[in-house]
């Protein structure tokens, strides 16, 4: 699918950015605006977009696998390793409680990691692709 000569990404005239959205008040169906519609296959084939897609998937897929396996491990331990989970660590606080709280910690940590990743690595790239497609960012 690699194209040597990239077709223009958009049919929209760059002279009036954003103007195409001002005139539309209501739209009954979810199908996007037909006029001035960007050339989606060209954008999809562009190296910028493929890079964005690869970058995003390389983050979210392994991360999803990670928290899923970690959660499943925890669930299986709770279901089948009662002795291990009830082992006391300090006071009456046992392994089960600590692992449970660690699920909270990991959830918040992954959330923060994702927010930072998208802010630093994804959003600028999305903005660049949007700009080259002639879509204004408010």
């Amino acid at each position, binding site marked *: 699918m690699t194209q040597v000569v990239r077709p223009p990404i958009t049919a929209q005239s760059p002279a009036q950015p954003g103007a195409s959205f001002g005139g539309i008040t209501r739209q*009954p169906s979810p199908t996007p605006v037909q006029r001035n519609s960007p050339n989606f296959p060209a954008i999809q084939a562009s190296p910028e977009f493929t890079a964005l897609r690869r970058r995003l998937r390389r983050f979210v897929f392994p991360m999803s696998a990670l928290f899923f396996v970690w959660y499943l491990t925890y669930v299986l331990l709770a279901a089948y390793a009662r002795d291990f989970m009830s082992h006391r660590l300090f006071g009456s606080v046992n392994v089960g409680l600590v692992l449970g709280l660690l699920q909270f910690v990991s959830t918040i940590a992954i*959330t923060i990691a994702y927010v930072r990743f998208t802010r630093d690595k994804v959003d600028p790239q999305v903005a660049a692709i949007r700009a080259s497609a002639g879509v204004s960012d408010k």
Partner: protein
Amino acid sequence: MIMTASLPYAAEVPSDDLGSPLLNTAIFAGFVVVTLYIVYRVSNRNKSTSDYYAAGSAFTGSQNGVAITGDYLSAASFLGIAGAIAVHGYDGFLYSIGFLVAWLVALLLVAELVRNTGRFTMGDVLAYRMRQRPVRAAAATSTLVISFFYMLAQMAGAGGLVALLLGVHDKGGQALVITVVGLIMIFYVLVGGMKGTTWVQIIKASILVVTVVLITVFLLGKFGFSISALLDEAAANNTNGSNVLAPGVQYGATPISRLDFVSLSLALILGAAGLPHVLMRFYTVPNAREARRSVVWAVGAMAIFYLATLIIGYGASALVGSNTILASTGKENSAAPLLAFEIGGPLLLGIIAAVAFATILAVVAGLTITASASFAHDVYANIFRDGKAEPAAEVRVARLTAVVVGVLAMAGGILANGQNVAFLVALAFAFAASANLSTLLYSLFWKRFNTTGTLCGMYVGLGSCLLLVIFSPVMSGAETSIFSGVDFHVFPLSNPGIVSIPLSFLAGYLGTVFSKERADTVKQAEMEVRSLTGIGAEVVR
């Protein structure tokens, strides 16, 4: 909410009224008046489809995040989880974790892409690059089934709450209260549309989270900020003793019950991101970045909430005692109210009661608007009118549907009052995980996925869930079954997730690979670019 043993408050001994029903009613009435006023104020312009379904996409990420929290934390998850922890200890905590971790699926894989791709309903996303009619019909079926089951569980629980908190013990009086709650809910939806409903969620979630945090801080203070002391006291006043500090009290009995727990956990973590009323909330913000912020806020608020319920649950066990809780009218569900009465007297109990009612009201309103949007947008506008419906007509249909759905919810709530229908919520999660999540993920991430695959995935997911539940111990063959006396159960687990979720992923895959149909590559390009960049997804006002 999931606990099979937790909902069943059929009218029992009318002797243990808590606090003052008058005060409880007054505080709840105050909430209703304030929210009605706000709903009325914000709903000046509710004419276009975008206004009615998506509040003009004008909410900020933080507002929507709090609203998501409100939509997600049902009365059952508040009263039910606190009660489960108070009575069964650690096993109740396992729910909290599943409910919370589930949001990572939404954050990483679903929220932003759905925001960019669709406009009003789940069907928008699923049908984007497929043949519209069959896929929208399937999406609407799934949305309506899930919303209705979820709603029925909420409304059936309302009867028990009425008995517990308002001192209304006869079925007729409870039916009257359910009807009033239903009418207020319909009013919110009709007048407020998505905007009004969202504000109701925001107010409810704020009160709920603040209240549980205050109670938690108070409890911790009472035990000298020593978790260990709290746990010891909880174990000492629980009939299960120190077993409540470890998993297994509720689920550890047999290999089947353990597997059932694993199945439930899968449904919880994979279901949240496929719940239609949660997906629809992402359309109320202007773009993907705000959708992301919504989830971040929701994760934050819910992490606090679920940590607090852990303390409240063990606190109820410590201060009220599991025997007293189980002997009261609402059984497990009364743990939080009893604790509130214990530490804060009638006033705190009144607040908890009002929060519980507000919760039912708000969650059912969210479900009603989702169901009505799906019917009006997917079925009426896109199937009957081929996508050429007048916006005004579509909104009219949506409003009418909301009334019908609301009346059905009231009728269902009155009929199911006292029935053990808690499994319906677990089932809704299993449905969402099998029918919706599989097809959503394929649709967003798998190029080849096509109409046949979508239909296979959705209907196999829905169908297998339904069949497995019908032939499970939930319906027959166990002491707690709906039909006692007969036994036609062949499937040993109460929760179908562990079978139905993989089955629907498999069906979606096989349906795609074995059909001759080719995926629409142009539409696929459009959907992929749009989902990742938001190009073509600009807010149209």
